[in-house]
Each structure stands twice: as C-alpha cells, then as structure tokens.
C-alpha cells in the first residue's frame, strides 16, 4: 500500500438548490384572504382557514396552481397529469395548523432542466406548490416597538419593566402561495448558482407570476453543499497512471433561508472552504442545517433545540386530487408568454443585435416589449433596431416612465439617421479582411457561411446601424 501522505486529494463542490418563490395571486393559496400582505397592519388578512381555527377547511386557488404549472413548464418539466396535495406535519409557532399543505409524491412538475450560458444543464428535480407560514419577529414584552425589531431579538434591554423575551406572530403571510423549485445537485460553483437564480428570477417575472423581489422575501434560497473527494493515489515506484476514486459525499450541509443572490454566493464559497478545511484534517463535516449570518459574514450552525425531523407526509384528505388533460397543459403552454431564452434567440436573429445588447434588452420583459414596440414605430422613420437598442441602453430608458414613440422621435431629431459614406465602408472592409485571413480563406475555399462572420466584424466598427446587405455586397465584391 502506498503511504497516505502521497495521496493527493481534490475536492469538487456538489451543490443543489431549493428556491421558494412567492406567487402574486390576489388571494391566498387555500382561503380567499387577500395575499397582498406586505407592509399591512398585522393580522388583518386572516380568516378561520389561515389562522387554523378548528373546523376550517382549505380550498385551493386555481390561479396559483396554473401558475405553478407554468413555472414548471418554463423549466422544461414533465407535468404530473394527476396530482394532489399532502400534509407535511411539524410544529412551529408560525405554522397555524401544525402541518403545511404541500406536495409529496405527485408534484405538479418534475424532471425539468435549465441551461446555463456555458451550455451546462442544471436538472430540476421537482416543482411543487405549497403555502407560506406566518411571519415571526422577536422582541420583548415590555418593548413598545418590539414587533419592529430585527430577527435575533436584539431589542435594547432595560427600557421597560417587562423584559421577558417573546416572539410575535403575524398571520397575514400565513397561506400565501409558494412554489418550491428543487434542483439536482448539479452546480459545482457559486457562480453557476447565481446565474441559475438570475435566470429563474427572470423567468417568473416574464411569466408575471411573482414580483421575485428579494427585499420583500419573494424568493427564498436554500443551497445544500457538500464536497466530493477525488483521490489520486500514485503506485509506488511504478510508472503507471494513478488510480482515481470518486467518493460520493456522505453528508450534506443545508443553508436555510437566504434572501439575496450575493449572500448565496458568499455562503457557498464560505461552506466550500470550511468543508475543505475539515476534510483536509481527515474529518468529515457534520450533516446539518446552517444559517447565513450577515454580521459574521459566515454560515453558522443552527443549534435548533434537538429537533425530530420526520414530517409524516400523508395525502391531504380535505382537498380532492387535481387532474389535468394533455390538452389543458398544451393550451396553457400556448398561452404562456415568450420566455427569456426564446426571446433572446429571436432578438439576435430578427434584429441583428449583438449578444451584449440582446442580453440587456431581454433581461426584463417590460424593456423587451418596449424595444419591440419602438422598432415597429421606428420602421416608418428609418430608425434601425440597433439605434433604438443603443438609445435604450445608453440612456438607461425606464420603460415604465417613457413611450416607445417618443424614443423614436428623439432619435430622429438627434439626426442619427444617416447613410454611411462609401469611402468609410471600403476602408473598414479592407481592415477587417486583412485581420481575418482565416475567414477569408474559408470563404474562398467554398464555406459560404464565413461571409456572415466578416459582415458582423465590419458592422461592429460602426456606432450607428448600417444595412447589412450593403456590407455583404461590398465584401463579396472585394473577394470575388
């Protein structure tokens, strides 16, 4: 046997993610209390159902289910045509009924995927529907402003006679619809997670089913992180390739309830380092739930009072199962708005924009719609899509406080609509052909498509939109 010290270890992070997205339905998931709870007087959006009073029964919100399925479809999930709700049983003061109505073995969506820019696929394990809990804050009984104090019970002490520490509950949020999206552990670094999250946020905003406002807690993030160890064990004295073994992590560390993309990145990076240090010492990290502390800038173990974790799921007897037909799902699919990826490809294709511009214009649906409308108006005034894109991006136009027609008018008035001077084009074409000999060679040897690359290179040199067909003709002429 080779001595242990010659063993080189490599650690590959294995990261999965659970995201809760709060839907922006008018009413709650299982009762018709208004779901618009943010900033409202406490306990003014409650009823027997969301307070969990004896005998109250849930009736599911059709719109929320439709939206959950739309999210699942946009993540390329299969839809369970027969689905149902289940009870997840656990005790916590913010959980009115002592169980959360969720979904167990028949989630609305399963086996989806989302593609990152690198082409890497992140598999989506499931997309299911559930209900939110009440909001807990911490303070002291005698403190008049205790309900305003931040989490952690850090209210100043000694200001009143009664310093008993208490938790305060507002049930306005109890029962607001949540969609939980669970990935397979397919991420290997924090950057990928961040890109995934941005994409997810973009999708739910495109679908117009959630504000996905991080500040308001519309998206709650829970990464689980472990490290896979790869051992390279060189054989003593022999010149053969090392034996490589992959050991699946025997533990998983979950970091709960993070409410910003930045903190998720930080938490993951911190965890990777922390776990690496433990593994280096020959120990194994503990399977546990941790939280992200903004103050300490690190993850901290959540020493919950020794908690039994057995949710005792069983089918919710109060809600009949939900069945969809294939036709209903395809109708829903056809009614869905164009999603970010599709819009991105179309913009590239249809408006001959570069990646950078397209990226910015399609980031939010409102801007993309604004752009398209401006292009339509601009056509009649010889204003090109590129000119509109430039204006929208450079001037950071806010689509909610501006009109597409007035943007077009601005462009016309600023006199940007010019035709290119022939000498200028000829000069640039010469430069481009000289510095792209390979493409020139390809074209000459019969690769027709190479010319489009050259056209693109030429067009990049212009700040204003020029006619691609003119450029193409010029290049063709020069190479013939």
């Amino acid at each position, binding site marked *: 046997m080779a001595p242990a010290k010659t063993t080189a270890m490599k650690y590959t992070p294995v990261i999965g993610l659970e995201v809760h997205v709060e839907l922006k339905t008018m009413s709650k998931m299982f009762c018709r209390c208004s779901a618009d709870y943010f900033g409202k007087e406490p306990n003014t959006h*409650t*009823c027997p159902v969301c307070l969990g009073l004896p005998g109250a029964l849930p009736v599911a919100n059709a719109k929320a289910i439709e939206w959950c399925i739309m999210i699942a479809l946009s993540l390329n999930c299969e839809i369970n045509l027969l689905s149902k709700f289940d009870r997840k049983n656990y005790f916590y003061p913010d959980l009115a009924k002592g169980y959360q109505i969720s979904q167990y073995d028949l989630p609305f969506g399963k086996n989806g995927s989302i593609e990152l820019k690198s082409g890497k696929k992140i598999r989506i394990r499931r997309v299911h529907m559930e209900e939110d809990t009440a909001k807990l804050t911490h303070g002291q009984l005698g403190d008049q402003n205790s309900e305003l104090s931040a989490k952690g019970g850090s209210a100043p002490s000694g200001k009143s006679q009664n310093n008993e*520490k208490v938790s305060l509950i507002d049930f306005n949020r109890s029962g607001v619809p949540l969609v939980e999206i669970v990935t397979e552990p397919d991420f290997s670094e924090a950057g990928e997670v961040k890109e995934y999250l941005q994409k997810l946020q973009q999708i739910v905003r495109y679908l117009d089913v959630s504000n996905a406002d991080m500040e308001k807690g519309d998206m709650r993030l829970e990464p689980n992180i472990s490290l896979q160890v790869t051992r390279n064990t060189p054989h003593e004295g022999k010149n053969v390739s090392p034996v490589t073994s992959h050991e699946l992590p025997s533990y998983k560390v979950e970091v709960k309830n993070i409410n910003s993309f930045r903190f998720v990145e930080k938490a993951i990076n911190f965890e990777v380092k922390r776990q690496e240090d433990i593994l280096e010492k020959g120990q194994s990290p503990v399977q546990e739930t941790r*939280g992200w502390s903004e103050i300490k800038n690190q993850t901290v173990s959540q020493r919950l009072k020794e908690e039994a974790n057995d949710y005792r799921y069983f089918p919710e007897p109060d809600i009949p199962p939900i069945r969809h037909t294939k036709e209903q799902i395809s109708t829903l699919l056809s009614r869905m708005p164009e999603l970010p990826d599709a819009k991105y490809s179309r913009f590239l294709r249809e408006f001959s924009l570069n990646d950078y511009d397209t990226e910015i214009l399609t980031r939010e649906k409102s801007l993309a719609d604004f752009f398209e409308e401006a292009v339509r108006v601009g056509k009649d005034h010889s204003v090109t899509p590129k000119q509109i894109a430039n204006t929208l991006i450079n001037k950071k136009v806010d689509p909610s406080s501006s009109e597409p027609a007035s943007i077009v008018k601005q462009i016309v008035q600023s006199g940007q609509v010019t035709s290119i001077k022939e000498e200028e084009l000829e000069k640039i074409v010469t430069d481009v052909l000289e510095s792209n000999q390979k493409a020139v060679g390809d074209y000459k040897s019969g690769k027709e498509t190479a010319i489009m690359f050259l056209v693109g290179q030429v067009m990049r040199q212009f700040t204003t939109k020029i006619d691609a067909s003119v450029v193409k003709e010029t290049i063709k002429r020069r190479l013939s």
Partner: protein
Amino acid sequence: MKIDITHIAKLANLTLSKEEKERFSKQLDDTLTTIQQLNEVNTDNIEITSQVTGLENVLDDDIPQPSLQQKDALANAKSTKNGLFVVKAILEE
C-alpha cells in the same frame, strides 16, 4: 415491536409524564397487535383510497373576500401585543 415513546411524543409535541409514557407504551402495543390482523387481508395490486367522494379539481377562483377584523382574529389568544400574537421566545441564532 418496541415503540420509542419519547421520540413519538416529541414528534407529536406532547409532554408526557413517566406514568403516561409507560401506560401508553403498553396500550399502543396492544392496539398495534389488534390492528396487525389487517395483514390477513391480501392487498397485492390494490390501489389506495384516501378519499371516497371521487371528486377532482375542486378549486376556487382567485378573488379575494373580506378577512376577519384584527380584534376578532386576536380575540381568542391568551397573549397579544400591538396586533400580534405573542409566544415565548423561540431561540434563534
């Protein structure tokens, strides 16, 4: 079979006295023995029935209805403060 009565009580959020634990342990054992007779019934290839109504898709439209007044929502609570329900502090890190 042996029931871990302390674990079950914890899951059930019940505080049981030593006597209760002993008594329930025995009674639960007896009850489980009685219901073991279900194993005499062959259920191979039988689907489950969790609801007998045969109903499906009983859903409601997303139209908000009035909620309870705050005072009515709080009326049955032992302890409230500034419109909120009060419980003993839940310790969090």
